[in-house]
């Protein structure tokens, strides 16, 4: 890509005080990611891996412990006051739950109008025009404008929430599981809206999700996160065809098939256990407590990120082998389970 990234996150770290005295929750630990204008980028991982905290830190809902968040080259962590507020507008967050992110007492029109006021649109005529435009952009009929948000379905509410975040003409949307709460038959409608916004408005979108199939289809690139760290990054094609970190391999293999002829004959691997506590992360490679390929050295030092192709990196000692299809976390496990 020849363009400059619209969003660049460098060595970001977010820690919370733990309930255990004197300890910290290492929710996001030394994460670097980039977003280019008009692209959808996926961020996947199990719950508790730090995806939401990363997204929330980027938009300023959490405070970074260290690291930088650059929007168009300007470091937001050094700004304050009005300058920070202005920059932040370009970054908007879309929440998972379309039920709690809107005010029940407002009508759809009022909800969007409020966002336009916050965005600094003074003239009522201009706000009226923009409200119509935004409703149209998110695919809601103008008749919906006078209805209360509580009367809407989940999919409609999520569209209103998206319309509100578009009110400020953002450059970047951080979408945190934006369709997880929606029914399957509605999900496609909202996903197609994201595809359209990206094409028509050039908004870049960091798409946080645990549904890997959804991400594959929408995103050009994907980051895989585990226990506060990015463990693999690549173009969707590379990552889904040649997952090269044991965690990505196992995550992909966990997603169920819809065809019972395939699913019922599946013997193979199950991911062992669950994500360990980020208060006491394992030494060395953080995945080692669940990794079927782990060797003694994995406990000693964090494996460096290995470049597998120009657009593909993975942080595992065996990444090169795995990329070539030589060693597989999946085969390994079947053997050890037998």
């Amino acid at each position, binding site marked *: 890509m020849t363009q400059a990234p619209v969003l660049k996150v460098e060595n970001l770290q977010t820690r919370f005080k733990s309930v255990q005295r004197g300890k910290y929750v290492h929710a996001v630990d030394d994460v670097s990611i980039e977003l280019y204008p008009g692209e959808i980028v996926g961020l996947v991982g199990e719950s508790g891996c730090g995806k939401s905290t990363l997204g929330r830190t980027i938009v300023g809902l959490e405070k970074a412990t260290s690291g930088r968040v650059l929007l168009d080259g300007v470091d937001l962590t050094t700004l304050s006051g009005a300058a920070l507020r202005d920059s932040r507008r370009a970054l908007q967050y879309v929440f998972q739950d379309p039920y709690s992110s809107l005010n029940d007492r407002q009508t759809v029109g009022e909800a969007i109008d409020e966002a336009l006021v916050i965005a600094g649109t003074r003239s009522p005529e201009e706000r009226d025009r923009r409200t119509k435009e935004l409703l149209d952009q998110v695919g809601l009929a103008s008749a919906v404008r006078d209805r209360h948000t509580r009367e809407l379905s989940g999919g409609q509410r999520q569209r209103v929430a998206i319309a509100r975040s578009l009110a400020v003409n953002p450059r970047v949307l951080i979408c945190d599981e934006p369709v997880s709460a929606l029914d399957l038959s509605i999900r496609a409608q909202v996903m197609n809206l994201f595809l359209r916004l990206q094409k028509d408005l050039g908004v870049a979108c960091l798409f946080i999700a645990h549904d890997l199939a959804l991400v594959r289809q929408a995103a050009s690139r994907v980051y895989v996160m585990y226990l506060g760290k990015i463990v693999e990054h690549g173009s969707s094609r590379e990552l889904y065809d040649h997952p090269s970190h044991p965690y990505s391999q196992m995550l992909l293999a966990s997603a*169920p098939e819809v065809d019972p002829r395939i*699913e019922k004959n599946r013997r193979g691997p199950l991911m062992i256990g*669950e994500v360990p506590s980020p208060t006491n992360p394992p030494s060395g490679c953080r995945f080692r407590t669940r990794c079927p390929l782990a060797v003694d050295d994995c406990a000693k030092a964090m494996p460096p990120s290995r470049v597998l192709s120009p657009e593909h990196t993975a942080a595992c000692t065996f990444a090169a082998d795995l990329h070539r299809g030589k060693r597989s976390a999946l085969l390994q496990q079947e053997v050890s389970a037998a």
Partner: protein
Amino acid sequence: MHDQPLLDVSNLTVNLLTAKSAVCPVDGVSYSVRQGECLAIVGESGSGKTVMNFAPLGLMPTGVTTMLSGSVKLEGRELIGLPETEIQKLRGKSVGFIFQDPMSALNPVRRIGRQIAEMAELHLNLTPRAAEARALELVKLVGISDPAARLRQYPHELSGGLRQRIVIAIALAGEPKLLIADEPTTALDVTVQAQILRLLKDVQRRLNMAMVLITHDMGVVAGAADNIVVMYAARAAECGPVDKVLVSPRHPYTRGLINAIPRREDPIGSEFRGLPGIPPTLGAPIRGCALAPRCELAVPACGNSRPPLVRSDDSAVLVACPVVNQGKAAA
């Protein structure tokens, strides 16, 4: 005995009345489950899955008046019209439950071991001592390592997956013949979901139970269930063996649902497939086919009367769509 279904539901209708509203979340649904069999009930949020399974067992929140009609037979015994005291005896004993909200099933201030043992005491008339032993057995059965230590812990000390294993252990404590699992994996990651599904399947086989698995996720159905009922707006749209319904769905709603699942061959950046529009609310009665406003095969007659669930071109599969069913007759 073996060809009599363990659970036989026929033409079940449930009306719910609250101070403010009246809804009919279950409208004339029939299905059955045999011993050792797993039936999946699939449908979107609000389609009536939970009410359909829990209302006949007297499990509705207070403040709602529940009106039931039709028939629900458990081992040949009619549940509709049975006094509450009789139904109460079945709950947790002949029928085990896993509720949709995982936390509601566990008491946050009591140790896990006590909670499991209590259920065993209550339903199996065990002495406290024997119940403790049974609790240990159950915790082992649900695949928890270091079981003795786990029994002394409190629910909040456990991860989501471990908690769900405990919920399953509690549901199994009364040695039920039927297990009703309402979205048992929805709150879990795919990685943990796979573990829990495998566990459920495994205990179902080992105990030769019948299981009703409520879910909105087709992937959950494929691996676990023998038969499936697809619900849309309080009614059954299609039912039959999963190997048939998931592989060649017939009803336009089932087809739409399965078609909406992204596939590996879908090009990156391509449009997502889905159904247009939104499901109806269940407040007002729906005269014709509930899918009509969203259905690409709809003809004017679809709005006139409710399509009956009848045999399709495959006699094992029932479909509530005359357009699809007549297509078979014409062919």
